């Protein structure tokens, strides 16, 4: 067919027109898909995608048997959007009042409170989108608010999760566990072990459709959450409960200002129980006096008194300067040329052996012997026994006690330190001394934390540190032997004896120095000992701080006895197989 010119022109024009239109589309396509693609993608994702916080869970604090002492729980905040609650054409005043009533009923508030909160927020900022109605409510309250909101389609109340902390055992080990403040840990192990316990929140982004349903296949976890590790303690919570109960009752009847009981496992220095009075309930911190928020066993240092005579005896025997049979003529008064030393009961000149000095707890007697070892050497022993510095536990607010260097000891202090005056220590330090004596003279680092178990199962933060020999095995065992004789022969023997067990113990009645100098009428009474003497497994130290009704150390004996009995029950300590070898008290 032949084409005429006009036909060809028409064809050309239509082709060119078509190509031009296609070209415009192609350019537009390239522009959208390639040039501005990123900008459009971001903008659309922003409109579609939702970033949510993935909460990590703070780690639990558990005792040696896994009992939870501090756990993470979920609480909820009730919030409101004040601007959505404002009265408008679509939302009448009556409806608003009804809704406020419903929300208040569900949340346990009064309608006036809710109204005030909304109105204050609106007054400050009419576009305000957030007001906190109630914080940290339980699941039941949250569900009630949700139900109320659904029932009458309230458009301005929301709930959101608020992670919180729960302490199921209350004040049992409360002074150890500590507590959280609004955002951070404030005291105790919660604070000092925060690195182990803290969780990191993650975030995840997903794309949602118009009705809020996640578009399939669209979740992108930007950052995974990391849960905190579980902090495993060495203490046994049931024993802690018993010990706390025993010292609480005793302190209340003796009207003591404070009291402690510390139980240490002799072979590794692990703390089995740390009981403090006054105690702290981490669930209800405001009920406690701020001065009481401490762990007395670690934070309060005092002159321990005669319980340290066992340490002095160990030094003497270790240096070969004395034996349990060493004969001493003990006068009724001792002139140190810096002050006088008397015994708790007046006596004439007595012929006591070193054992007798321990059984009768004679200050004069031990002072007579103490000069057989030089000041410097005794000071070094005391350092090795752990006095004058914090224990390895490093508890939040722990005191290091006070031990002056030997060249600073005046004449009186030189002798006073041999019976535990003129030196200050905490109950934990005294327990550590008895742990050393029970462990054949090897001091193990005092341990409260077994380790931190991470969510993936690995255990970190296991305390390292090996034992250190302080006195010879023979010296330690000999001293324990003398302490067994205290239990069998001292005047308070019936109060501490447990049939079938060779217990070792020493009493202490320490004077308390007055702030201006000199000693007052107050005493710190204590009993420190071992279960049991022939095979020491646990060291137990019970201390009453400034009792009023009975200032004798025999008043502490029944508490020590009960706690020792409970230790035997808890750990199934078998009765002793050999009788106590009797040592002579006098000559």
């Amino acid at each position, binding site marked *: 067919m032949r084409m005429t010119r006009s036909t060809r022109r028409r064809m050309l024009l239509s082709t060119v027109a078509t190509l031009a239109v296609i070209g415009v589309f192609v350019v537009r396509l390239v522009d959208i898909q390639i040039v501005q693609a990123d900008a459009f993608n971001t903008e659309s994702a922003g409109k579609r995608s939702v970033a949510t916080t993935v909460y990590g869970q703070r780690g639990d604090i558990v005792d040696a048997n896994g009992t939870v002492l501090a756990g993470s729980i979920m609480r909820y905040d009730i919030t409101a959007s004040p601007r959505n609650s404002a009265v408008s054409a679509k939302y009448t005043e009556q409806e608003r009042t009804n809704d406020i009533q419903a929300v208040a009923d569900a949340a346990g508030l009064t309608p006036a409170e809710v109204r005030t909160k909304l109105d204050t927020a609106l007054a400050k900022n009419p576009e305000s989108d957030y007001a906190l109605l109630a914080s940290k409510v339980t699941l039941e309250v949250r569900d009630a608010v949700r139900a109320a909101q659904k029932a009458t389609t309230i458009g301005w109340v929301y709930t959101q999760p608020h992670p919180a902390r729960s302490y*199921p055992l*209350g004040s049992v080990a409360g002074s150890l566990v500590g507590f959280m403040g609004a955002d951070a840990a404030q005291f105790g192990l919660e604070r000092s072990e925060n690195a182990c316990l803290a969780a990191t929140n993650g975030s995840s982004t997903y794309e949602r459709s118009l009705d809020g349903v996640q578009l399939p296949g669209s979740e992108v976890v930007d950052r995974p959450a990391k849960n905190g590790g579980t902090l495993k303690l060495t203490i046994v919570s049931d024993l802690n409960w018993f010990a706390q109960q025993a010292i609480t009752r005793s302190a209340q009847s003796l009207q003591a200002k404070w009291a402690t009981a510390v139980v240490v496992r002799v072979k590794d220095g692990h703390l089995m129980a740390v009981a403090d009075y006054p105690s702290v309930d981490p669930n209800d911190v405001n009920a406690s*006096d701020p001065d009481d928020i401490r762990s007395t066993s670690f934070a309060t240092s005092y002159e321990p008194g005669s319980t340290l005579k066992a340490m002095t005896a160990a030094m003497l025997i270790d240096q070969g300067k004395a034996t349990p049979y060493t004969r001493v003529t003990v006068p009724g008064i001792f002139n140190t040329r810096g*002050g006088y030393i008397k015994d708790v009961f007046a006596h004439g000149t007595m012929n006591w052996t070193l054992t007798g000095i321990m059984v009768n707890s004679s200050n004069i007697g031990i002072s007579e012997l103490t000069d057989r070892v030089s000041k410097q050497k005794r000071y070094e022993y005391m350092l090795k026994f752990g006095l004058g510095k914090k224990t390895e536990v490093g508890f939040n607010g722990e005191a290091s006690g006070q031990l002056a260097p030997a060249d600073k000891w005046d004449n009186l202090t030189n002798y006073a330190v041999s019976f535990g005056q003129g030196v200050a220590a905490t109950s934990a330090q005294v327990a550590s001394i008895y742990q050393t004596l029970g462990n054949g003279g090897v001091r193990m680092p005092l341990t409260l934390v077994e380790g931190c178990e991470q969510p993936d199962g690995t255990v970190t933060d296991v305390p390292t540190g090996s034992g250190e020999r302080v006195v010879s095995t023979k010296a330690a065992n000999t001293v324990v032997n003398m302490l067994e004789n205290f239990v069998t022969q001292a005047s308070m023997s019936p109060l501490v004896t447990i049939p079938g067990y060779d217990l070792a113990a020493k009493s202490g*009645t320490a004077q308390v120095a007055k702030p201006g100098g000199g000693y007052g009428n107050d005493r710190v009474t204590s009993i420190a000992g071992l279960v049991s003497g022939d095979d020491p497994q646990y060291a137990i130290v019970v201390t009453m*701080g400034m009792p009023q009704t009975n200032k004798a150390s025999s008043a502490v004996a029944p508490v020590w006895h009960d706690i020792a009995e409970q230790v035997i029950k808890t750990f199934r300590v078998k009765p002793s197989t050999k009788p106590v070898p009797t040592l002579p008290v006098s000559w």
Partner: protein
Amino acid sequence: MSNLAYAPTRPRVAQPAPPLRPARRVEIVPNRALRRARPKPLYAVVAIGGLFALFLGQLLLSIGVSDGAYQIASLQSQKAELDRQQQSLSEQADVLSSTQNLATKAAQLGMVPSGGTPAFLDLADGRVIGTSKAASAATSGVATLANSLLPESDPTTDAATGAVGDAGSAGDTTAGDPAAGEAGTASGEAPAGTASVPAGTTGAGTTGAGTTGAGTTIADESQDALGSTGAPATPTTTPPVLSTDGGLPTPTTH
């Protein structure tokens, strides 16, 4: 093709119309070769049908996936709901298994702690090691250690640290008592009014006798009793070790 526009025109001469012949359909009779070469309708049907099937399939899949997304969202919210309930219940379980609660409940049931030290049975030779004595009511006692998570109207819970009254911490804007909220669902029994007081309740300063009445009365009494013990404890200041002058009195420690 000839362009009729340029065809010379000739005057039309009427000519007699050619005789009409009956119209006959003319068909080309295909031979085998031609028949084989013809495209079969089946292919067309398959092709177009397949195309439709693909579109339909994609549509159905897309519907199914979106429906699945809704199911997932619904199941996830169910799971979240169940998670919340599980957390709440295990929290209540932890509180109920606290030592204070167990001791209190045991005392209310009339149980007493075992007396003395345990005896051991040596399985190797059947020996009994040690002696144990029977428990007596005198060794029983009730919990005195505060736990504000436990129902506070329980008269045997210690009021020494002020657990009576609102256990909520300061700054908490909810008037709802969390402890009561939990206890209400957990412990089931009405507090104070129906709790039976154990026989051997001594010590702890609580007046555990007879009529329980209002839980707050008992608690108030014990709080008064303990309130008289004086000021809260102040920690000991570290005592001075060195004597600044020679006037240090003689220590008479034991």
